[in-house]
């Protein structure tokens, strides 16, 4: 097998792997046996081009699709779900952290974020109450 054919085959296998969504023990086992089948086919038919291999075994997308459809791997779906959940949790954590930083930053600004105004209003109310209390006593 010449080098360019070997390289093209490696690319073909890589493409199939990329369509298998997640790496599981079963998909790794499948890829090992698939590669062995391709080598058997190459040997038996004296194949010299990757196009002939693709013609016999199919496009990478079709191979992966057939595997995923037949396997109906509950745990593949589960792993994809776990992956998505982790992604959502990480995104939520990042958003919370970003919001916290933004609020903290606004808090450091002089009279920023409306907090100063609220404090002044509270002081005014206290003064009025005090005046009222004094007045009532008198």
């Amino acid at each position: 097998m010449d080098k360019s054919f070997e390289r093209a085959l490696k690319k073909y296998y890589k493409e199939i792997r990329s369509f298998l969504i997640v790496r599981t023990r079963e998909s790794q086992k499948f890829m090992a046996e698939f590669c062995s089948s391709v080598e058997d086919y190459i040997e038996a038919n004296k194949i010299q081009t990757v196009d002939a291999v693709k013609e016999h075994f199919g496009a990478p997308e079709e191979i992966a699709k057939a595997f995923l459809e037949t396997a109906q791997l509950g745990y593949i779906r589960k792993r994809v779900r776990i992956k998505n959940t982790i992604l959502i949790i990480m995104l939520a954590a990042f958003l919370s952290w970003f919001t916290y930083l933004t609020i903290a930053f606004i808090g450091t600004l002089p009279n920023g974020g409306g907090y100063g105004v609220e404090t002044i209003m509270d002081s005014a109310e206290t003064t009025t109450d005090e005046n009222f209390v004094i007045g009532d006593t008198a």
Partner: protein
Amino acid sequence: MEKYVDDFKRGVTELLVLHMLCEGDKYGYEITHAFEELSNGLYTMAEGTLYPILYKLEDAGYISSYSVKVGVRRMRKFYTIEKKGKERYEAMLRDYLLISDVIRHILGLEGKTDG
């Protein structure tokens, strides 16, 4: 090829794989190649379809596997049928023949030859 053909095939794939292994230990490429040869190219089975079925049968204990070194670094995995697998094959074959007869009866094809 129409999708229903794939659906028909999917229903009997397990039966055919077990049948192949009843005839002797085989490796993946040997099984797909045998399908192609015995059906004169009319029944092809993609590797992506075959291997998950083999794994499922192996997990269920119907078949088992062993590896044989081929050449310098390659390992070839052979599948062999177990007693439980033979029983499963016989039960599946019985049910397949029964269903096939019923379908032929419904379609009014009894006594007619195929084609």
